[in-house]
């Protein structure tokens, strides 16, 4: 990775951290559990990392069996994180669905 590419990614990282703080600091306490659960699902994006890594591994020719297993487990864990995370958040938020009681 050349230095420009690295600095570009680093810039993205730092800016994203600021965006994260700005967006999250406004979330009310009532929604902290769904928020945590939703961010938890979002880091499930690692499943895409697992897919890319698996593809790169196979592109080299047939990998050793134990590496195939490792790549499959990586995708599996990532998928558990994504699907489970979003499903559980959806279930939590269903509870907030009801209309605001007139005050």
């Amino acid at each position, binding site marked *: *990775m050349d230095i420009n590419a690295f600095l570009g*990614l680093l810039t993205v*990282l730092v800016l*994203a*951290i600021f*965006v*994260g703080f700005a*967006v999250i600091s406004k*979330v009310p*306490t*009532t*929604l*902290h*559990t*769904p*928020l*945590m659960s*939703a*961010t*938890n*699902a*979002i*880091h*499930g*994006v*690692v*499943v*895409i990392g*697992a897919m890319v*890594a*698996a*593809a*790169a*591994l*196979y*592109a*080299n020719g047939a*990998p050793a069996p134990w590496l*195939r297993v*490792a*790549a*499959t487990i*990586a*995708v*599996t*864990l990532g*998928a*558990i*994180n994504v*699907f*489970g*995370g*979003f*499903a*559980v958040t*959806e279930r*939590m938020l269903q509870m*907030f669905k009801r209309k*605001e009681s007139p*005050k």
Partner: protein
Amino acid sequence: MSVLTIVGAVGDLVAIACFIQGLILLNAPSTARAGNRLAMAGMAIAMIFAAWQTLGAAAVPIVVGILVGGAIGVVAAMRVKMTAMPQMVALYNGAGGGAAALVSMVEFYHIVGTAGQGDPVVRVSLVLSAIIGCISFTGSIIAFLKLQELMTGRPITYPGQQFVNGIVALAVAALAVWLIGFDGETTWWCFPLLLVLACGLGKLFVLPIGGADMPVVISLLNSFTGLAVAITGFEIDSTLLIICGALVGASGTLLTVMMGKAMNRPLTNVLFGAFGAQGGAEVASASGGPQNVKSTSADDVAIMLAYAQKVMVVPGYGMAVAQAQHSVKALADQLEKRGVKVSYAIHPVAGRMPGHMNVLLAEANVPYPALLDMEDANPEFPTTDVALVIGANDVTNPAARNVTSSPIYGMPILDVDKAGNVIVLKRSMRSGFAGIENPLYELDNTSMLFGDAKASVDELTAAVKAL
């Protein structure tokens, strides 16, 4: 740049926009669901584009992994009880951390397999993401075991613990440095060893932390996984992973800091203080605990509640364990029929997860304007007739205000003792998770209603109805 790559990059960009807008929508209860849906849509887009680019090369691991993992994740999410949410989120978080660590390992052998060394950025990223991912993986599993009560919620400590942890941490660091300089020829066997050691570190790290501090630990581990995912992004040159990881890392860190502030304890104390271990030992040896406690009956409490003007419910982990939220709502409905004003005082660290009580009460259809934060609830207590403490303990402990020797001295608490009457629903006189005596129980205006929280609340509802 091929068309495929460009289309993929645009897909990632759309996904990122969906995630950020989704998080913005999570700012209000009325739009939160749309926010989660939008984030889901973003993830679907990103995954479809990724599948398009990768399926051709590695169809078997990807299809098998997504089908198996997706099925496990969704089925578990549908089956889990609302009260078990914190440990479920911990497990999913651990899965993400484990995935990040395994991706790093696969990438490592990919580089070794192509007889290369990779460049320094990639080597450092591989090692860091593997370590942090593993810590998150085993740390989350221990947090799950503690919350599920498959192991003791009390801190597990032994002499020389910090020393052992230090040695393991040093070993991890040394191996990491060596691996960063790897040449692919002599060090190929080190990577699994690094994973094993880092997993050990994650386990050792969470063992001495007590069950009551789990909200902080879960937030922190969530931010760890975010960090590991962001670093994984550097390995495979993916801005999508970097941005998602950074968003989660920032949110986890923010929640961790907020929890720490709510307990008035620095993070180091939460993580390394083995909070409650000492207190637990003291209580075990003490003879019987507090002496001047008044016990009361459901009928007496029902009369008190029915003729009150203002009742404040103070829920805690005990309500979650007994799954009493629906019964609490039923009682509140009965009282409101009689013109009693019922509100709920929520301490920021009540329960085992940030906002845990809010979710449970929302499940029971309690309107959220009735849920008061600590700052809003405390001015209300002096004019409250009855404070009904359901399974909350340490967050109501007045010792935090004035007993300088108390381990929780300085922690902001709910001022329940300022209410006209305090009714504490509790299973027994056993001390809370932190193992600290609560002088609230000995006050003149406090009465105890012993028994399972749900059974007690149901009795109260029946008694109020009968009046």
